[in-house]
């Protein structure tokens, strides 16, 4: 898989995947097929087992690293595969179809890698990224705390400068893969302002406690406590005042990853439900002939297509460094995560009582889909953010209209009032 950079063979015409033509380039379509085949072979058959065990086997992580998945956002010159955003999205989509926990590993590890690649010094990049791309060091994202979720500006973890090191005190909660992570992209306050730092989770003073969650159960969530942990000043990623900005920029990648993962959940719900509806016989016919079942399948199939196109659009914008990418990622995540929940609910309904057992994958898909509406910005945070942007746009358009009507003599008070209301809240967190 890591040979994707080599010029791919042209893709011969084939029926569009799921009937959806997406305009993917040959390299991207080849990559998607490889991701799909890998997921079918290495992930989907075992996802239920990992879920029940509440853990991801180390051997799976090693195979992911060998395929280049853990270096997906690491530049090639630092040992990564450096895939474009669309290809990264396709990886998340296919892995998400098989197992949301495995996809979550790619999400949080890539968030840590991305922060270092984007904001790190040369020394930090060389110290961390090659080993992270090889999977020898696992990264995680540490923003949420026991009392701090969506209001990221209120973090209570502190970093007090003492000579050439910061002394870190506080607790991070809901840290995805925190049980096995080696380095945490951690946010703490210094002199009352958030900074970002890379914390070695094997350092003295770090305590990692496993947490039990009932969605993405194999994602090895942890609570991490820092009791006077000394973090070298050279491991600081962003000074006081820039930590939250780094968090928000990294969360955008995470949000995109989760949105694409939700497309995978949608497809898994659809595939399981279509198969079940076509074979489950009740009253002398397969239940797929019942129109109320068909209605649920129709909604699922349409939502999958819509979510996929929103994610691809957001990915294309990210690849072009388009400033609208941030907004489109919000749209993609909002739609895909809520659609995934709808699809999972319908999938369980179609399966009846069977859908509530672990003999079928849909109960896991339902538990996992609920997580997606909470992490990387809850559904409500997405709604507030998207709604506020529309109000800002409306206010701006209103000013332009008024200016046109008044010959340009109108000020900007309305738009400024709305713009100033733009919150310093982080749009939600997952770890």
């Amino acid at each position, binding site marked *: 898989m890591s040979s994707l950079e080599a010029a791919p063979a042209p893709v011969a015409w084939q029926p569009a995947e799921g009937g959806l033509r997406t305009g993917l380039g040959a390299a991207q379509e080849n990559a998607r097929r490889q991701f799909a085949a890998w997921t079918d072979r290495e992930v989907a058959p075992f996802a239920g087992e990992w879920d029940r065990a509440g853990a991801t086997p180390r051997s799976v992580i090693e195979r992911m690293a060998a395929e280049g998945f853990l270096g997906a956002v690491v530049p090639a010159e630092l040992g990564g595969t450096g895939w474009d955003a669309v290809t990264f999205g396709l990886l998340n989509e296919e892995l998400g179809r098989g197992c949301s926990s495995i996809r979550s590993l790619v999400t949080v590890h890539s968030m840590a890698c991305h922060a270092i690649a984007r*904001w*790190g*010094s*040369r020394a*930090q990049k060389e110290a961390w990224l090659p080993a992270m791309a090889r999977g020898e060091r696992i990264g995680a994202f540490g923003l949420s705390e026991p009392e701090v979720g969506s209001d990221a*500006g209120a973090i209570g973890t502190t970093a007090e400068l003492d000579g050439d090191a910061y002394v870190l005190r506080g607790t991070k909660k809901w840290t995805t893969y925190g049980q096995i992570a080696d380095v945490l992209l951690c946010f703490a306050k210094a002199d009352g*302002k958030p900074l970002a730092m890379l914390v070695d989770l094997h350092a003295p003073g770090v305590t990692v406690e496993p947490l039990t969650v009932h969605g993405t159960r194999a994602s090895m969530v942890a609570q991490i406590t820092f009791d006077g942990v000394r973090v070298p000043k050279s491991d*600081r*990623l*962003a*000074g*006081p*005042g*820039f930590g*939250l*900005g*780094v968090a*928000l*920029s990294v969360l955008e990648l995470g949000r995109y990853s989760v949105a694409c993962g939700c497309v995978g959940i949608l497809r898994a719900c659809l595939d399981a439900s279509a198969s079940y509806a076509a074979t489950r016989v009740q009253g002398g016919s397969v239940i797929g002939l019942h129109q109320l079942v068909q209605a649920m399948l129709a909604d699922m199939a349409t939502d999958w297509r819509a979510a996929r196109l929103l994610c691809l659009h957001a990915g294309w914008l990210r690849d072009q460094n388009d400033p609208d990418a941030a907004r489109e990622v919000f749209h993609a995540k909002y739609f895909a995560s809520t659609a995934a929940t709808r699809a999972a609910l319908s999938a369980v309904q179609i399966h009846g009582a069977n859908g509530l057992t672990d003999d079928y994958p849909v109960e896991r898909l339902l538990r996992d889909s609920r997580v997606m509406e909470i992490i990387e910005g809850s559904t409500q945070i997405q709604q507030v953010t998207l709604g506020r942007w529309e109000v800002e746009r409306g206010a701006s358009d209103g000013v332009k209209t008024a200016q046109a009507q008044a010959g340009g003599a109108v*000020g*900007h*008070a309305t*738009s*400024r009032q709305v*713009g*100033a209301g*733009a*919150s*310093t809240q982080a749009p939600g967190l997952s770890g």
Partner: protein
Amino acid sequence: MEPKQQIREFLSRFIRDHQLADDEDIFATGYVNSMFAMQLVQFVETTFGIAVESEDLEIDNFRTVDAIAALVGRKQGAAV
């Protein structure tokens, strides 16, 4: 256009009805939020062709028009 003028023009998109002095604290105006800080970094990088790295992510480097222009000058000078 001189760097300070480019910086002023960028900032005027966010701080619309206030005449910002070159030595005035941008973050104390109440007009901007945390995401703005990263937009400002992105603007500085793309406009002036420099790379802002972790050691540059200090609020004092971005607090005023004067400070931003000084950072740009240092980074451009270092790159020559």
